[in-house]
């Protein structure tokens, strides 16, 4: 973050990618809607960007980052409660994951995979689902989603990387 404050874009990119993963995981513990998780993640990233001048390099980064994430999450939950949206059933795709969770034993690789899939962005998860579970080709997915083939490949590749990162430690990699 110190480098980002000085204008280092490469360091900032790496930082934001790591922050995105952390905030997604954090938000997912409280919000059971993937859209909402993405909203909270994006708002946290924007707040971090706006308030980056308040980070003191002499202090640890994570408490600063989680304080912002927690505030954005609480803000989101508060607004959601006010709108009564918490009574609306879970977001797109989450029910499938949740339902599948019930039949899979906790702690097994299959369970871990489902948890990790829940942490991917919606686009990553959908593309991996179409590629690996529905057996569609990149060209077919490109046609179906309107994304270019290279974009489909890049999204899937990033999704695999994230899955590897999330599941690696648990599987002893």
């Amino acid at each position: 973050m110190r480098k980002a404050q000085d204008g280092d874009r490469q360091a900032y990119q790496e930082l934001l990618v790591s922050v995105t993963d952390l905030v997604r995981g954090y938000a997912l513990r409280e919000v059971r809607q993937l859209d909402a998780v993405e909203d909270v993640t994006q708002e946290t990233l924007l707040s971090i960007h706006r308030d980056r001048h308040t980070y003191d390099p002499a202090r640890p980064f994570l408490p600063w980052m989680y304080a912002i994430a927690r505030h954005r999450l609480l803000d989101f939950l508060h607004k959601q409660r006010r709108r009564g949206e918490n009574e609306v059933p879970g977001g797109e795709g989450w029910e499938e994951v949740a339902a599948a969770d019930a039949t899979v034993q906790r702690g097994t690789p299959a369970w871990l995979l489902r948890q990790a899939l829940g942490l991917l962005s919606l686009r990553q998860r959908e593309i991996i689902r179409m590629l690996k579970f529905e057996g569609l080709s990149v060209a077919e997915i490109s046609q179906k989603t309107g994304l270019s083939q290279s974009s489909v490949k890049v999204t899937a590749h990033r999704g695999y990387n994230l899955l590897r990162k999330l599941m690696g430690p648990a599987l002893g990699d």
Partner: protein
Amino acid sequence: METEEVVRSLVNGLTPVRRLPGLGWRSALWTIFALACVCAGTFALGARPDLAGAIRDPAFLRANALLLLVFVLSARAAFQLSVPGSDRGAAARMLPLGGLLLWGCCIACGRSACALPPAPISIAGLSCAVKLLLLGLAPSLMGFSMLRKAAPLSPGWTGWFALLSPGSLALLGTRWVCAREDPLHLFLWHLLPALAAALLGIYLGRRLLARPRLRA
């Protein structure tokens, strides 16, 4: 917009920023400014005629030390709350209020040796409230302006401390100006305006210090 696009646009829009000065430095700067303002204001309003006797009274000095402690603790709390991740929790938030209430107890329990005879409550005491507000005005404005440059995540609490701190210092200042020692006068025209100002701080904090929600 996808999160990855948000990240890309933030990286592309990155510019170097000037770091916010450290918490200790900002608190110290504001504390010195507030002390200077209240000292100058107290001098301008004129010291109470029995001040020489009052400052020899341990109860008077104890009560003043307590107000000074509330001033420092609440200033520290306001600046801590203005930086994400620096909040010290509920105990640190309650301490200044506890100090102020303790001051109220001191006033209620201990009657100063040099106290003047109690006078009936009248609207004339309003001048003490006005003096208190005048003494605390400049430090409050400066405090809010400094806090706005940071990122308070709890604007209500930050606003409360941002006005409780100059309020307690102004309370101290008015004790050096007003010679009346009867507890009812002190509660009604000294403590209540300071607490009311701090409560107003919650509203002002939410209006002036809140960080708006951003949308991608």
